[in-house]
């Protein structure tokens, strides 16, 4: 009985841990020649400052929409900003036509499909969701 209770508590705890508590990783298409990126390169790319891979090739950031907990966790860990502040920042770029915003996907499945079909795509995921078609180039909180 005691064993069952402990198991139940552990199980409940695991269920209570939100998906974004898992380590997030930045991924590219497996055919992209880039192997590794550093923190400032990832910031530049997702903050629209310099949307380029380290080898000079064009990058296409892809992400889930504003409702995503993963997106919220990603920007919090990457630059320490809430989504409201990220949106304020992007409104400067977007409404002046300075930069193209990341391509939004409605769900994880479509994001994975997009990533698998475009070698210039770059996105972020919980580590457990990385598929064989993707390659990890940066780990948050590494």
């Amino acid at each position: 009985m005691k064993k069952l209770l402990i198991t139940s508590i552990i199980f409940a705890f695991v269920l209570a841990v939100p998906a974004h508590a898992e380590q997030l990783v930045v991924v590219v298409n497996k055919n992209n020649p880039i192997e590794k990126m550093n923190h400032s390169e990832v910031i530049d790319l997702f903050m629209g400052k310099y949307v380029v891979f380290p080898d000079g090739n064009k990058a296409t950031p892809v992400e889930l929409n504003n409702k995503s907990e993963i997106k919220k966790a990603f920007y919090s860990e990457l630059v320490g900003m809430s989504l409201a502040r990220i949106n304020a920042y992007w409104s400067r770029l977007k409404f002046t036509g300075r930069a193209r915003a990341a391509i939004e996907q409605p769900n994880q499945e479509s994001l994975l499909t997009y990533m698998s079909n475009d070698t210039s795509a770059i996105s972020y995921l919980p580590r457990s969701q990385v598929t064989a078609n993707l390659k990890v180039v940066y780990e948050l909180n590494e």
Partner: protein
Amino acid sequence: MKIRTIFITLYAVLLSAPLLAQNQNIKFSGFGTLGVIYSDSDLYGYRKDVGSQDGAFSGSLDFKTDSLLGLQVDAAISDDIDFIGQTILKEVTKPSFDRFLTLAFIRYQASPQWTFRIGRTAPDLFLLTEFRDVDFAYTWATPPNEVYGIIPYRSIDGADVTYTHRLNNGTLKTKLFTGMADAEISSKSVTETIKIKDVLGLSLSYDKFNWALNANFSQVTFANEANSNKAIATQVALMPEFIWPNSIATSEELLIKGAKSNYASVSGRYDWDNWRFTAEFSRIDAKVKLIPTISSMYAGLTYQHDEHSFFMLYSSTSSNAFDISDDNVNIALIPELYMAFTDAVNFYASNQDTSSIGWRWNLSNNIASTLQFNVTNINEHGGTLWVKKAQDSSAETVHTTMFNVSFVF
């Protein structure tokens, strides 16, 4: 007129875009502000820039000055080429199709480093001039009037090229732009359209995320003459020597067509822990007596805690007022002409400073409210940035309270 036709065509694309809304390459978005302002002066009415003919005076709440709605369409024509159109609906002195169309340009990204744009873009004269109407984009209720209130231009018709590259773990952007623009400049009784051409500008920015430096420099040529100034100049030129010595030479100083004006700005931002420091110094230097050298600045400190930002801001502007008392003019014989002349030559002579405190609260990911309280000390003859209700230019301290809800979608 040809360029107007181009923009009308581009705007038609913008308007017809909803028909293509199912196309995933076309995206619609927007921004807006619902704002209310209370200011306590009977003489000086608060306005956001010198283009507005109406202001917020004592005794009533003003909802028009700060409220607007912006709509934008982004249409990807190919991987490298897209069209951006934007309209901002708000109170303007001379409403027209041209004034409501704020962006309409084609962008071509030749490489990750090089971007070319042609059409109607936002002017990059100072740090915030490109997005001054997007209130959701910055912490304050509005950009400091001391620096931005003197600039009425919202768009520039022309082209620009931007080169971006990484340098020492930061990004360096160099932008060259050229074009022409026009906008209204208003007093309570007169509105004039000012046109500038041969705009040539350079914008440099270096960004290391937790700090950034920007420098902007532009030169413009005035392309027309204000009718009211022409009328005064004609009357001054007719004055005999015993009333107005050197009247012809003085009258010519009222004319600005063909004269050049320089806009320069240096700004910086530094973030540490929950704090942000921002400052900008600007200078407008025209080669005509009518427009004095205007030196302006602001410095602000913001403390951010979760979705709340508490800020304080100090801004000032100063310029030399035009003084004709040394010219031995017999003022007693021509009091009305003298007053009109003085008003005209001192129109741009803004002299004031403002201390502000405020609070921004991000109500959701896309909506924020901002409350700001300003105390402005206006020097005698220094109230250019305000709408004056009477022919009185005395010094005054004005208290202005602004509350707005800004949003993006």
